[in-house]
């Protein structure tokens, strides 16, 4: 850190012009160039990033590269310089999450880097920028231009004699061909990459491969094994896999190798071995993953959907639905929660404080963007929030400052989850199979049943759209009824015995109000409590089940209600005062933050001591910016990403605002959104509406809820169920779009 740049580095000129800049130089030495997205051994990070670094601090390369992004804006003020081009490649190439967050921005920025290098005779720089451009275009699925970019990159890198770059071109083309289903071309390109790679000697100590080379080696082996497997040349695939196993170092990520092994075993009709390899692959990625943060996991999940999907399908075809449940639960681990008694080194504490400052700054900027309705900026801030969360979680992980994660294997989960579902309980998972079937996994009585829905996935999606429209517009119930009947029909015999039902639904069904689905002529909630779980993972965690809000010690409640924020012209919510009164009736010592008192600072402070938090006001959710989901407090919005960073959150949260329960969910993931942020940060139960609600309905629901909670021994979900039934029985709220909007998430 703060080393001198290499002689003749493109950073020379910039550093000379800015000797006192707000940045630090991270110099990785010559081995840096084994990473194809680095064109110089060094890059810049904000000075604040390294300010608190001490001898015992841990800094990963990925964290440093994530920070490189923050320097782009000040650098761009100097116009188009080669240093800016190099920094763009670090910022995008080193951060696949950021690149994936906005593929168009990825293309635009890499084009800027190319413009910066053009005409300077920097063959390696320009060639590697073309490789990154090809990658960006491939992610957008602009195949023609991607192939063209890779070929141009290849030409320049050949002239530059850059073997690492050439290896990467071949690997990337192999990957692109495999994505297009052209496995023969993929074999050809991967073989070519292997031939180039054979000419490379390790750039690390004693001729060992560096981390960058390890990545390249794994990448090429992976593409070769996968393509040969798909083509059907299994003998050669086996040979390549052997040499991959032989060559693999401790630095390598085992996930790809094990997943490729699984694919090959399936091709060889050795299904049981394939499933075993899949499970070990999943364990390798999710049990031992040091970066266990929510955004990080979302990225990994998106890139692992095929593996998970195949593993689940294989488990089901082998008659092992329990293992399918284990796989689904393994996909979702909680984001790290800061340990109450964990002591952190001063440097980590300092770094966390710096991250928290950035969170506050981002909240300030995002407030400006929401008021200006600047969607482009909000989109960028959503991405920045993800990175901030990831950096912060990584700090907690690496410094040992978080509660140790459950490291159960898939098989252990497969055993433990059915056991965790108690007598009279039923857990249901709804998901879509690869061939358009909607599968149901029903967990009860210590076992798992694999069932299917009658309608196909496309019909279910159509009905789900119809049901959603009916609920939002409060007109008609045909979609809710037809879809409800369809989803409950396969489990009717199990529902008949259940008094409590947990539902995890993926895809089109994720917003469907299962509690409103008709069962024996009445909504399901009439015969059982219904709780939504963002994934099967919470079933892993025992404790909390069956506890009421009155569990032996006095509960501290805080209510924050804002009828009209100061910075947005929105309709008044006059019912909030009565809502506050309802809360106070149950919790007489409730701290009331009403209108002007309900500032973001006051609410964030309440997180530190409240057991129950009732937040009422206008709320906003956009699926493309789930981290920007917000509830509008008096002085500014409170954003989901701020909630995610809280060191403590209340046990029970009632979010009384439009769509506050909505979330953007990936396969098996906990999702992103306001309610999801509370759950991920440790809240046990969130009550929130899935779609916009009338404030008179919200008031009626909350009055009934709190009246019920005032009774000793009543659990939150029981209270919510009673409130739903009360509304349902009231003529003006009888439409499921009103009473059915309120959902219980989590497991208290």
């Amino acid at each position, binding site marked *: 850190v703060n080393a001198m740049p290499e002689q003749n580095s493109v950073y020379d000129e910039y550093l000379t012009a800015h000797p006192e800049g707000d940045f630090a130089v991270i110099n990785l030495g010559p081995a840096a160039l084994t990473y194809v997205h680095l064109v110089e051994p060094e890059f810049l990070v904000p000075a604040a990033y390294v300010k608190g670094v001490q001898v015992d601090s841990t800094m990963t390369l990925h964290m440093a590269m994530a920070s490189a992004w923050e320097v782009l804006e000040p650098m761009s003020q100097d116009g188009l310089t080669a240093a800016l081009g190099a920094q763009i490649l670090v910022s995008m190439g080193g951060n696949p999450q950021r690149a994936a967050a906005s593929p*168009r*921005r990825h*293309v*635009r920025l890499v*084009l*800027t880097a*190319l*413009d910066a290098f*053009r005409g300077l005779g920097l063959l390696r720089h320009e060639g590697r920028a*073309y490789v990154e*451009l090809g990658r960006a275009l491939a992610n957008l699925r*602009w*195949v*023609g*231009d991607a*192939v*063209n*970019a890779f*070929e*141009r990159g290849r030409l320049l890198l050949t002239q530059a004699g850059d073997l690492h770059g050439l290896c990467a071109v071949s690997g990337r083309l192999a990957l692109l*061909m495999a994505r*297009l*289903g*052209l*496995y*023969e*071309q993929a*074999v*050809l390109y991967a073989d070519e990459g292997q031939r180039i790679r054979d000419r490379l000697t390790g750039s690390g100590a004693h001729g060992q491969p560096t981390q960058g080379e390890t990545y390249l080696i794994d990448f090429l082996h992976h593409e070769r094994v996968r393509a040969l497997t798909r*083509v*059907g*040349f*299994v*003998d050669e695939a086996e040979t390549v896999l052997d040499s991959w196993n032989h060559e693999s170092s401790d630095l390598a990520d085992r996930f790809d190798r094990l997943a490729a092994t699984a694919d090959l075993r399936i091709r060889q009709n050795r299904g049981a071995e394939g499933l075993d390899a899949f499970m070990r692959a999943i364990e390798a990625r999710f049990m031992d993953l040091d970066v266990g943060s929510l955004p990080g996991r979302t990225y990994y999940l998106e890139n692992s959907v095929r593996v998970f999907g195949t593993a689940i399908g294989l488990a089901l075809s082998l008659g092992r639905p329990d293992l399918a449940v284990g796989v689904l639960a393994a996909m979702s681990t909680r984001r790290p929660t800061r340990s109450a008694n964990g002591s952190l080194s001063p440097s980590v504490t300092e770094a966390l404080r710096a991250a928290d400052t950035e969170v506050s700054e981002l909240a300030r900027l995002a407030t400006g963007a929401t008021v200006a309705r600047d*969607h*482009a900026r909000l989109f960028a801030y959503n991405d920045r929030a993800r990175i901030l969360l990831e950096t912060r979680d990584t700090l907690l992980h690496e410094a040992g400052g978080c509660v140790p994660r459950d490291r159960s294997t898939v098989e252990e989960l497969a055993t433990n989850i059915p056991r965790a579902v108690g007598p009279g309980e039923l857990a249901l998972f709804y998901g879509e199979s690869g061939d358009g079937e909607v599968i149901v996994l029903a967990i009860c009585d210590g076992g798992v049943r694999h069932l299917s829905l009658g309608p196909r996935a496309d019909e279910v999606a159509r009905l789900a759209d119809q049901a959603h429209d009916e609920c939002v517009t409060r007109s008609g119930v045909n979609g809710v009824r037809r879809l409800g009947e369809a989803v409950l029909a396969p489990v009717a015999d199990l529902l008949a015995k259940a008094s409590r039902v947990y539902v995890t639904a993926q895809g089109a069904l994720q917003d469907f109000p299962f509690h409103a689905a008709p069962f024996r002529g009445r909504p399901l909630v009439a015969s059982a409590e219904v709780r939504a779980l963002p994934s099967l993972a919470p079933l892993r965690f025992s404790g909390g089940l069956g506890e009421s809000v009155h569990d032996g010690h006095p509960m501290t409640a805080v209510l924050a209600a804002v009828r009209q924020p100061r910075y947005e012209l929105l309709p008044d919510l006059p019912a909030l005062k009565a809502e506050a009164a309802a809360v106070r009736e149950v919790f007489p010592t409730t701290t009331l933050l009403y209108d002007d008192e309900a500032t973001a600072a006051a609410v964030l402070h309440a997180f530190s001591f409240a057991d129950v938090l009732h937040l009422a006001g206008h709320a906003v959710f956009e699926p493309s910016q789930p981290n920007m989901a917000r509830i509008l407090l008096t002085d500014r919005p409170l954003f989901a990403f701020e909630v995610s960073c809280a060191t403590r959150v209340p046990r029970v949260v009632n979010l009384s605002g439009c769509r506050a329960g909505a979330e953007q969910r990936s396969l098996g993931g906990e999702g992103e959104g306001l309610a999801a942020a509370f759950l991920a940060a440790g809240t046990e139960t969130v009550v929130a509406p899935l779609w916009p609600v009338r404030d008179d309905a919200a008031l009626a629901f909350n009055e009934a809820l709190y009246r019920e909670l005032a009774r000793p021994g009543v659990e939150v979900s029981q209270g919510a169920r009673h409130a739903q039934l009360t509304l349902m029985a009231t003529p003006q709220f009888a439409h499921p779009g009103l009473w059915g909007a309120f959902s219980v998430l989590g497991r208290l």
Partner: protein
Amino acid sequence: MAAVPGGFTVRGDAFYVRESLTIEAGLARALDEEPDEPFHESTQADVTSVCDQADDLAANDGPEAARKFLLPQLQQYKRWVRSVDLGLAGNDEEDSVRVATGMRGNLAALSLRAALYGLRAGAPPEQVASEILAADALELGEAVESATAQILAQCLRIQGRPDLALSLLVRSPTGESPAQHVRTVLDVARRTYAIGHVRRVEELLTLTDWRGDPTGLEKDLTTRLVTEHEPSQVELAARVDARRQAFDNGDWATLRDLALSDVMWLAEDPHLWMALSVILKINGAVDQAQLAHDAAEIVAQQGAVS
């Protein structure tokens, strides 16, 4: 103002439009040969006349001239498709998806023609394959997919990988001429055998989905490379008696085996194909018989695969 069919109107979110224009210009600088020329405002184009002109040139001046003529046209089409993808062109039609698909189809047609003339003119197979892949034509229907696979298979064959060509062909649709597909498959299978990769042929035969082989004839023939050895002259001579004996006994299964083996191992000959056709018909394999008959006619017209 009335919209111009195939034309464009800049509309939508200002940031999005600005970014699209920046990307379009950036990609033109980075990837196109004549980046300074702005993209055309209208996407109306007559690809048939371009192809006709190319064919005339090929007939009069050779394939290289045709290819030379096609490549700049191709470049223009690529730029149009890019503009359509970015929402900067072709969005005045009511059905903009149809416009985009049409443009892609045109681009694919030109790419395939340019590649074909490229192979005839002796262009490096790597370059031709790269051009074909850049056309991104695999999702434009079976006819285009089949044509793409045929050209890629030819490139793979020239590159010394008939095994990969065989794999590609058995996974691809037959296209307009199933008989031609059979002949190409047999050719690359024989070449794979010839370079010592009989195990790869065997591995491909274990695959259940030979998409380009609905009658099963390709698989029946290719299997001979794995289950039999190349017949010697003595064995071939002995087949005359074996054939006569099978005929006398009405042993149509043996006759079928012998005919399949002849077609697979011996030089391509219309008579062998025709004999196979007759025997398949006797065996009740009508579709296979028709295919063999069509193959016989093509060999008679065009000669053996070179």
